[in-house]
């Protein structure tokens, strides 16, 4: 896959992540319960658990900030932005894995929105690392150098 296509695919996935995180941020501040398919209480339980915030900041807000930062790093051209996008994506994937562990083994409840976010972050991490490892001849301007 070419660099351009990889970048677009990653950006689209990141924008889906922005939507998921924005929804969870909205329900948090609006005092609503997240929509849970099948009528379960997993989302509500996870979102209202003590792990739903980090140092007083809701995890949904952290997720939204992370997805937006990844999207910006994908829009900005250049080697450095590519590195930052990959670092953010892999960090997000790692933290998302930790949150999934908490859901399964500590909170004992699964939030469908968090699972969706974990899947998106896994995809973003794979695509961002793939893009980072692309050979120069698949990049838009092989001769270009970072200022």
């Amino acid at each position, binding site marked *: 896959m070419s660099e351009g296509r990889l970048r677009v695919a990653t950006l689209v996935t990141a924008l889906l992540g922005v939507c998921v995180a924005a929804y969870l941020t909205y329900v948090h501040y609006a005092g609503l*319960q997240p929509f849970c398919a099948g009528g379960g209480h997993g989302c509500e339980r996870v979102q209202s658990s003590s792990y739903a915030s*980090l140092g007083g900041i809701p995890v949904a807000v952290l997720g939204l900030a992370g997805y937006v930062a990844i999207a910006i790093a994908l829009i900005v051209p250049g080697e450095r932005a590519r590195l930052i996008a990959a670092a953010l994506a892999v*960090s997000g994937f790692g933290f998302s894995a930790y949150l999934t562990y908490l859901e399964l083994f500590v909170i004992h409840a699964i939030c469908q929105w968090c699972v969706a976010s974990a899947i998106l972050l896994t995809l973003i991490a794979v695509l961002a690392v793939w893009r980072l490892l692309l050979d120069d001849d698949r990049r838009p301007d092989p001769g270009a150098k970072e200022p």
Partner: protein
Amino acid sequence: MSSREEQKAQARAERAARERAQAQLEQRRKRLLQLGSVVGVAVIVVVVLVLVSQSSKPDPNASSGVTVAGVSESRAMLRGVAQNGSSLGDKNAPLVLTEFADLQCPFCRDYALDVLPQIIQRYVRPGRLRLELRLQRFIGPDSDVAARAAQAAASRDRMWNFVDLMYRNQGQENSGYITDSYLSRIATAAGVPAKLVLDGSTSASMAKPLIAAQAEAQTAGVTSTPSFVIGRKAGQGKLLNLASLDIGAFAAAIDPELKR
């Protein structure tokens, strides 16, 4: 073409191939270095986030330490929700859920940490339900001290902050963990003057609402904690017979009452 020129062309081709191979090797080395940096940064970021997350998790043994666990979570849960004495939520809410609890009771703690945040989010914040707390003193003398201290916090409309932090820092029943130092730390973290709470913990005037709460519990038929009564007025209504302490069981009891 002479053989000399052929040799030169071959040498050029070999040099070009060597240079290409060298360039590819360098490129691969650079990419692996970049990947290593990315993974290294990610590991640091994740470790920091996990440490922050772990440092603020509820710790049942925190009472022996000098820090108060769960302060930010407790604040986040109660932020923007009206408090008035022992009540939490809109005073005009159509329904009232009265809880009878002992601050040393581990099941009351489980309810407070696992279910209460969901009840607040689902029913109290939208103004559909008001919560009332009636502290009991079943378990031992420390329950009495803790309940009086909580009543003192109620005089500043901070009872729910105080009680929530007590649960988040609960120790073993009757182990003597409710010391003056413990109460001072909880009070300060709950935004109540420590002196007010310490004076209240031994004050006869703080026993009055507790005696009233005990009478309400007897009238309602409460025999264990936590127990819940649902109705239109505080402390009055139907004693809930819950199959389990989870949001589903509470929703099954609250939703039909809201539809009436």
